């Protein structure tokens, strides 16, 4: 195993762990609900998930025509199953299945 690669992985892994663990030790208990910090943190979750969804869909959108129908089918399946079952698991699996099926339909014969 390359020692340089191992060293790089250890440095990046240590910083990433620090970013994830360190801030969990900040004292948030005495934070007034309407304080700027509390409102910033409350909005962080929805903003992060929205950003990650957009970032994961953008490459599909930019890859062009063949992926348009699967993307619409997958997205609609997630919306429909989530509002029907209120289940993250069922909606995720249905969306992936619908995407794969629509992709198969668009494959050249």
């Amino acid at each position: 195993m390359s020692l340089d690669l191992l060293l790089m992985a250890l440095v990046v892994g240590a910083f990433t762990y620090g970013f994830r663990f360190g801030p969990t030790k900040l004292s948030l208990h005495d934070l007034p609900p309407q304080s700027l910090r509390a409102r910033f943190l409350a909005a962080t979750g929805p903003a992060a998930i929205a950003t990650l969804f957009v970032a994961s869909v953008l490459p599909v959108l930019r890859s062009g025509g063949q992926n348009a129908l699967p993307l619409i089918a997958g997205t609609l399946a997630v919306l429909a199953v989530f509002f029907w079952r209120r289940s993250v698991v069922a909606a995720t699996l249905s969306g992936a299945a619908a995407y794969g099926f629509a992709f198969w339909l668009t494959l050249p014969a």
Partner: protein
Amino acid sequence: MTQPPATFRSGLISALPIAMGYLPIAFSFGIAATRAGLTEAEAVMLSVVIFAGAAQFLALALITSGAPLILSAFTLVAMNLRHLLYGPALLKAAGQAASTRRAWAWAFALTDEVFGASLGAIARGRRFSEPFMLGLGFGAYGSWVLGTALGALAGGGALQDWPALDAGLGFMLPALFLSLLLSILTRAQLPPIAVAAAVCVAASLWWSSTAGILLGMLAGALTGLVGRVRA
């Protein structure tokens, strides 16, 4: 209504959609790593030590481009800066009773998806618990390392004969993020969500996808300062 504190087992079960999303992506990473000239052991080592998907793919690009290791490490560390926000945001949503005694263990696996899934669980009324976080993180981490190992061993072209399956598995993470977004969606959260999405698109198109994620997240969170938003 708030449910009783969740167990390690329920955390593992909640990790199922994450694991199903991680397996194919980690599998792809294992394939890409061996294609980039890494050994199977080196590919698995990156997943075991770093456990951050986007950073790992970028690491491969930097390694194959011949970038100096110090520059590569700096770039990858900068890419993971967004994780600074996850712990405080999660604990703010979890409330005053949230314990962080074992955060040293569960925070290791506080990835984008684990953060989203735990926040979604709290929004659906599940009480925050460290055993649940450990189960969620363990399921996600195990599937990531397993997927990498399988991909590295399978080598290139493993899913070439199954393009529809490959495509469907590739949509698993966007589907998961959309489901998680729906599970925490309220009228009050629409402004941060809309601003985050718009800034992410703009910054990704005009700069880079890494900048899009970081700036989108920050812009959406800053929108919370303008309105009254509850987690």
